[in-house]
């Protein structure tokens, strides 16, 4: 074997990446050739040294990479709830008060968005938004990261933001508002999978037939939240029992959803109950422009 041929193989031999036949022939050559043997020693010296010559990135690189790719989460206590919040640099992504612990919340997030979370302190503005939302106050759209949601989900979730605090609207009203009047069940699914309860007030959406309906955190919680926002839960319950879905004013000849602020101003003696929007229209009542009750008569 020639020296040159040997030298092109000694590096592969150093790491056992060579077949045994070549190795034996090279070993033989090295026994007789001090120059090549010296090269082996030098090569091993260089190999041992080379790793210490690596350049290291700035300390912030990993943090920058992770925060640009992964969403973050944090939790805090608020009025007896442990609130879990996932957020990206673009805003809130998920809010949960039912997660058992960190890994449960991460698992819920993974199921919902197929993405991994990393623990990071929640930015002050994110936290303030969630706190305000849990008091029933409106949250700016710019605080919310809607990425990963379908267009329909986005439509539905931004529409329910328009339901005022203290009021409720039926699923059918939401379906009409997003111009998909038949998609009542689909609206229900969006509500059930709402990644940001409170922030996007799915608790203000109820069945047309009355009652509060389903809620991610149970119907009792839904009642409690609605009551705390000033919704007339008891009135809605008793009207539902009587089959009354709308209330009109005998003086203005305008009809409303019972929880509409305008409906609640109608004096007892002027109050006219309706079982349907058609019924109201037949009796010469106009739909309220504020709560738009006609959109619920699917």
């Amino acid at each position, binding site marked *: 074997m020639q*020296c*040159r041929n040997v*030298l*092109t*193989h000694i*590096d*592969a031999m*150093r*790491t*056992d*990446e060579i077949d045994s036949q070549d190795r034996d022939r090279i070993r033989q050559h090295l026994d007789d050739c001090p*120059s*090549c043997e*010296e*090269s082996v020693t*030098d*090569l*091993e*010296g*260089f*190999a*041992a*040294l*080379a*790793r*210490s*010559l*690596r*350049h*290291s*990135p*700035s300390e912030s*690189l*990993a943090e*920058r*990479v*992770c925060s*640009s*790719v*992964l969403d973050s989460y944090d939790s805090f206590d608020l009025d007896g709830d442990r609130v879990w919040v996932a957020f990206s640099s673009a805003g809130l992504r998920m809010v949960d008060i039912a997660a058992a612990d960190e*890994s449960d919340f*991460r698992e819920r997030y*993974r199921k919902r968005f*197929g*993405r*991994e*979370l*990393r623990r990071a302190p929640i930015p002050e503005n994110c936290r303030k938004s969630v706190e305000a939302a849990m008091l029933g106050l409106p949250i700016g759209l710019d605080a919310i990261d809607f990425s990963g949601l379908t267009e329909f989900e986005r439509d539905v979730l931004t529409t329910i933001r328009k339901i005022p605090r203290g009021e409720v609207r039926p699923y059918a009203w939401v379906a009409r508002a997003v111009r998909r009047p038949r998609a009542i069940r689909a609206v229900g699914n969006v509500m059930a999978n709402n990644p940001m309860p409170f922030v996007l007030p799915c608790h203000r959406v109820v069945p047309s037939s009355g009652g509060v309906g389903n809620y991610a955190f149970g119907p009792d919680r839904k009642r409690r939240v609605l009551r705390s926002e000033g919704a007339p839960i008891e009135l809605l319950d008793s009207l539902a029992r009587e089959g009354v879905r709308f209330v009109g004013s005998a003086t203005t000849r305008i009809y409303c959803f019972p929880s509409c602020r305008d409906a609640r101003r109608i004096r007892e003696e002027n109050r006219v109950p309706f079982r349907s929007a058609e019924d109201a229209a037949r009796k010469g009542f106009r739909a309220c422009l504020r709560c738009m009750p006609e959109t619920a008569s699917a």
Partner: protein
Amino acid sequence: MRSTWTGGTALTADSEQLALAVHESRDGAFERLVARFETSLFNYANRLLQSPLDAQEVVQDAFVRAHHALTSQYDGRRVRELALKPWLFRIARNLSLNRRRGHNHDLERPLSEFDDGRIGPLVPAISVTGIVEAREERDALERAIESLPDDARELIVLRFMEEMSYQEIAKCTGQTESALRGRVFRSLKLLRAALSEGEAQSCNAETC
């Protein structure tokens, strides 16, 4: 010295697990991936581009692309078959090459045939502890590496700093293993030549 070598198959199974964990969005998986490879990829990109700022951007971009591929583009089978380390290096390599084009450098140029007719020692006889202590010698080696042609410098980095196997380097650069052996050899000879040239220059400067 063989015992210090960390390349080859030892980490392969572990890397496959890691790629799969990222694919399944397992807790902390991507952060572990970044922690494991950030220095390697940065060193590689910085040696290719010789610009820390550009290298940081390349590495960040490479991780973002890798994450996207592992979580959104590849199915489980493809992830399981992936050789994670050379795959990551290849992403960083392509991004570096793209960036380089603007600078009018070309890593794809074939290694210029280098042969001074001697077969002599591949690297200067420098003791391992000696060079670490002797800052000047270390700086000389650093300068010699910097002065190498792009392709020779790349192989020195992949083979000796990042301790990749010939198989892994082949996957990263798209060259055959047998061609790589010759190229590594020539790269080492170029390095040695660069070192002796540097020595000669510093002697002149000090009027010896």
